[in-house]
């Protein structure tokens, strides 16, 4: 009887876990399936009868969308923006986070608070303000697509800093630094031979999140009249709802798969990505 009770107990736990996963599924997967039907199946979406499920599927809309020259050029712009935003952000925050942690730990709360500002001050107010000011004063600055880079770097700062800081805490950077210094290592040696090799996972997490954010950012690009993947996605969708939706789904799945691959590669090399610090 007792064994039966035990089994009931673990069955309840298993049921709890399944329920949780099913709820998560309903919240995320069902809307995506509905979208997929609308995007790729050429029948009225509201009709869900057995005979209608497997007919009329077509990826033609998606093909037209991804081969559209404007979409291709916007994708290129967005990917370049991703690369520059990551570079600017890491160049600014990686040294700042490391030096603060190992040399001035008392400044860490200040840095934490400051890097939160871009979220606390509504970014839309920032972009409206900055755009208006720049347009009136240094209009040439806003002409280039790359004028978006500082905004994106600023906006991704909270993520980047928290990912890097979580990495520094996880490896115990401060005592690693002190151990290496006492053995005669210079600051440069510590950073390049000790800290960075152990922070690859954190750097990748920071970069991945920045990439995902930039690829999904609409407000800045739209207000500064730039053609990026998100803005072109919206434009395209106005003309061809099904094709636009197919494109959106495609980007979503591609981003998720890319991030998944990065995480898996890191796992295989024995690094685990912690997002708890984010």
């Amino acid at each position, binding site marked *: 009887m007792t064994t039966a009770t035990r089994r009931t107990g673990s069955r309840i736990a298993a049921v709890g876990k399944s329920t949780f996963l099913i709820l998560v599924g309903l919240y995320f997967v069902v809307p995506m399936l509905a979208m997929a039907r609308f995007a790729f199946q050429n029948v009225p979406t509201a009709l869900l009868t057995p005979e209608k499920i497997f007919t009329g599927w077509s990826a033609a809309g998606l093909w037209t969308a991804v081969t559209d020259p404007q979409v291709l050029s916007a994708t290129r712009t967005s990917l370049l923006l991703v690369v520059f935003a990551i570079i600017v952000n890491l160049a600014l925050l990686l040294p700042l986070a490391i030096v603060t942690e190992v040399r001035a730990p008392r400044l860490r709360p200040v840095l934490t608070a400051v890097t939160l500002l871009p979220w606390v001050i509504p970014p839309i107010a920032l972009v409206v303000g900055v755009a208006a000011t720049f347009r009136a004063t240094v209009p040439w600055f806003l002409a280039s697509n790359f004028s978006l880079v500082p905004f994106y770097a600023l906006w991704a700062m909270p993520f980047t800093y928290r990912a890097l800081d979580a990495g520094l805490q996880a*490896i*115990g950077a401060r*005592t*690693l630094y*002190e*151990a*290496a*210094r*006492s*053995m*005669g*290592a*210079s600051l440069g*040696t510590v950073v390049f*031979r*000790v800290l960075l*090799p*152990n922070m690859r996972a954190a750097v990748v997490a920071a970069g991945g999140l920045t990439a995902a954010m930039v690829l999904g950012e609409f407000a800045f690009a739209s207000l500064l009249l730039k053609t990026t993947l998100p803005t072109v996605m919206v434009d395209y969708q106005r003309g061809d709802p099904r094709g636009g939706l197919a494109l959106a789904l495609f980007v979503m799945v591609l981003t998720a798969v890319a991030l998944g691959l990065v995480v898996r590669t890191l796992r295989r090399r024995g690094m685990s990505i912690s997002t708890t610090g984010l």
Partner: protein
Amino acid sequence: MAAVEMTGIEKSFGPSVALADFSVSIGSGELVCLLGPSGCGKTTALRILAGFERPDRGTVVVGGKDVSDDPPERRRFGMVFQDYSLFPNLTARQNIEFGLKVQKRPATERAEVVERMVAVTALDAHADKYPHQMSGGQKQRVALARAIATSPRVLLLDEPLSALDAKVRETLRDEIRRLQQEIGVTTVFVTHDQHEALAVADRVGVMSNGRLEQLAPPRELYLNPANAFVAGFIGTVNRVDAVGQSDGRWRVLGRVLAGSRPGHEGVEEVAAVRPEQVAVDPDGPATVVGVSFLGPITRVTVDDPQVGQVLADVISADAADLRPGGAVRVRLRDDVEHVVLIGRSA
């Protein structure tokens, strides 16, 4: 000549004083323990010696040279931390080699030193493992090997055993002592555990509130504590009334004997009596209230109607018939020739 000389060090963090006029002189090859409760300033003293904190005032002299303004990497010290601080991306062997590489020693010398270190710390079976594959004790042995591989002028140990299980703690404690004596490196060992300090040190510095209360060899610290704080912190003491006699001696637990200060007729003081200085005889006015088996010895807690609660350490073989509730009598053992008097306070 002293290998390390810290003179008149003062250090505050904002309003809180971490060290107040701290001075210590450490001989070459000596192992000095800094011992005290949390927040007493012992770790700050170590970090100032290592160069990670700058003192507000005072000098640090190592090997006759003032290093007060040298950054840590120029001091040529070895350091071991409570949390191991091994480089996670390097194997045990590579961790040990790190300092040698930084100092640009030739490859053959490096290989030879690493092998010697692996051998003396008995790490042969684990030399190619990464830190996350090792137990706490193994990690700390690697950290120790890494710290001494560069032949540091001074070895600094910051609570090296606190993160380990009790059993591993004792084994590694003895290993550290053996190794330190073998290579003869001047060593500063910070701990909050008095047993650790007594067992391992040539001299122990007891600290409290940023001050060095007493610096002496373990035996002397134990037998002649300078004040009530040291007496209470090192080992266990009974605080027992001592009454001065006209001949300058003191009456303690029914016996009259010499004290660490001369007594005056009728003066009342407190004597610090160690549990092992107390004998427990069968039958008497006192009652056994507790019996703790400590291995070779057994600690007996006795409630005496006159003296109050008294702890006595008895050879375990003699304690077999002591039970809580038993009637006993406590006295000072016959071989005790002298008592330590401490202030009434603390």
